[in-house]
């Protein structure tokens, strides 16, 4: 991709981010409920004290001025101070982000490693009992409310079988100094394999809960595209060339069949990141989604504002990554 195109895309980003910020801002501003009253709660406060708090939170300025200063600060990387944490929003979000990304990525991996083999096998054994079972599995995956699935998994695997823990990222017998913030990576960097194993046990249930609907979608995509690819002339031609079946399968069919899967996966990762608040709540996962939802309920404007912006940037980036992956896998297309 040449630099000019790159900058063109970057420029397209600006109005989207501005629009997202503005809508988020207006939505919050129009939502009834006063953060100051929420913070004070039932306790006594004199009007002066209320005014002081309002000023400390930066809520005493007119609406548009607040938006303008949010934008001006945001450009410099300053997203304000979280009303409740009393710390810079960027810091609070930064602490939570790795957990969310890690969970999403593991869920993505879970989705990919289940969906691709299943989808491919379902395509190869089209209309067999295996195909039907895999299809049913995928449809059940997208047909269950996530929180219900999560609670069922907890009941079965944590309470009854006691195979997995209920909540958290890791137990307390290990101390892992954060390096990257990703527990699975950090434990490996520390060569603490016991902790790595434990981290895996902790992430298993939430990742499965989060990954299952996506696995279902990806399985459908993979199956369809594999079926399509298997009908392509180049697969027939590869067969006519007398290539070994394994080579036809992996080098000719699978590589092309995965193009849509990878694109869809990249885009869907965005919805994983933005859709995991329910899973995070159920599994006590210290991620961003839960924090953002809580912040909406307590009118923690700066945090919601920054998080929404972050989601939008992620969305744009993921689309970008999807495009790049698409190009890499598909030499016909040039960015």
């Amino acid at each position, binding site marked *: 991709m040449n630099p000019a195109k790159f900058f063109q895309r970057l420029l397209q980003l600006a109005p989207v981010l501005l629009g997202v910020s503005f809508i988020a801002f207006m939505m919050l501003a129009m939502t009834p409920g006063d953060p100051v009253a929420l913070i004070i709660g039932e306790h006594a406060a004199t009007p002066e004290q209320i005014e002081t708090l309002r000023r400390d939170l930066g809520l005493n300025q007119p609406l548009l001025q607040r938006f303008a200063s949010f934008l001006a600060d945001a450009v410099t990387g300053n997203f304000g101070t979280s009303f409740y944490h009393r710390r810079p929003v960027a810091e609070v979000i930064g602490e939570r982000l790795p957990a969310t990304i890690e969970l999403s990525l593991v869920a993505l991996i879970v989705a990919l490693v289940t969906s691709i083999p299943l989808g491919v096998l379902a395509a190869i054994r089209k209309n067999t009992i295996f195909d039907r079972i895999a299809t049913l599995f995928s449809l059940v995956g997208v047909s269950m409310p996530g929180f219900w699935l999560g609670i069922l998994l907890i009941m079965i695997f944590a309470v009854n079988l006691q195979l997995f823990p209920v909540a958290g990222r890791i137990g307390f017998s290990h101390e892992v100094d954060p390096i990257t913030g990703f527990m699975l990576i950090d434990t490996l960097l520390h060569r603490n394999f016991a902790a790595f194993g434990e981290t895996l046990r902790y992430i298993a249930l939430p990742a499965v809960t989060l990954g299952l609907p996506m696995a279902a979608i990806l399985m459908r995509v993979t199956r369809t595209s594999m079926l399509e690819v298997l009908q392509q002339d180049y697969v027939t031609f590869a067969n006519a060339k007398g290539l070994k079946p394994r080579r036809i399968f992996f080098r000719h069919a699978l590589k092309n069949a995965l193009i849509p899967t990878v694109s869809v996966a990249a885009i869907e990762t965005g919805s994983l990141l933005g859709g995991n608040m329910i899973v995070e709540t159920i599994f006590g996962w210290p991620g961003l989604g839960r924090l953002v939802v809580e912040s909406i309920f307590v009118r923690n404007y700066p945090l919601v504002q920054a998080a*929404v912006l972050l989601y939008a940037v992620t969305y744009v980036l993921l689309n970008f990554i999807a495009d790049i992956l698409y190009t890499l896998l598909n030499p016909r297309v040039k960015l």
Partner: protein
Amino acid sequence: MTVIASSTAGAPGLPIWRQNLRVFCANKSALFASAVVVLFVAMAIIAPIIAPHDPNDTDLFRRLQPPVWKEGGDWAYILGCDALGRDILSRLIYGSRISIFIGAAVVLFATVIGILAGLAAGYLRGWVDVVISRIVDILLGFPYLIFAIGLMAMMGPGLVNIVLALVYKEWVIPCRVVRGETLAAREQEYVEAARAVGASSGHIMLREILPNILSAVTVISTVRMANVIIMEASLSFLGLGVQPPTASWGEMVAGGREFIMEAWWVSTFPGLAILALVLAINVASQGLRDAFDPRFAE
């Protein structure tokens, strides 16, 4: 050239949609799934007739009464009772109204808006396209659930607000599809022919292009309907569901999860109901897709 292609084209002479319908009807699981959906819709319509009890009739003495086959169960309340002693079966039956209403209303509004916006963007191009595409980009930049939560917080809970909150973003999906299809259709001969004879833009969009892309949109809409029903459950989980005493499946699962160990039936039956309906919609829509949108046919 393949023999298969010529054989699936079906009997020549029949209109395309009849042929498609034949293919659809040959798909037994899709047919069965459609029957299930129809059954649910029928259940929703005649709920007052078939529900054994008033779904809102509370009786604290029946709190968390188990289903009939468990000890303490009773034939009058086959699936047991919820935390307020209301009949779960009756609430399930009435709840189908809400789930189906939300699913249908959201998808209907979203599809209509999405079609109009998509047609305008794809056919008129120019600034219309720029504006609509930008709005679509911006809305897509929001995580779905967070956007819905924000709107629900803004408007307050309630059935109408749930529909609105979901429509606000849902229309983007059909819009994108329609825009793409319209862009492609624009270059087709039949559109150029219509333009050549001086048909108005509105006529071309609604009378020429729309019928040709409708099947693709319909297929997408049915899939989205399944999604919307799940979304309603998610909003209920976050405490942004329908207002009491309305029974909605999402609300029943969400409210019953507290009792999952003590009284599993409270959340399990509505959960299964969601699963069944959404599964049926998904299977049926897949059948529709295979039959009516041959590009996706497998």
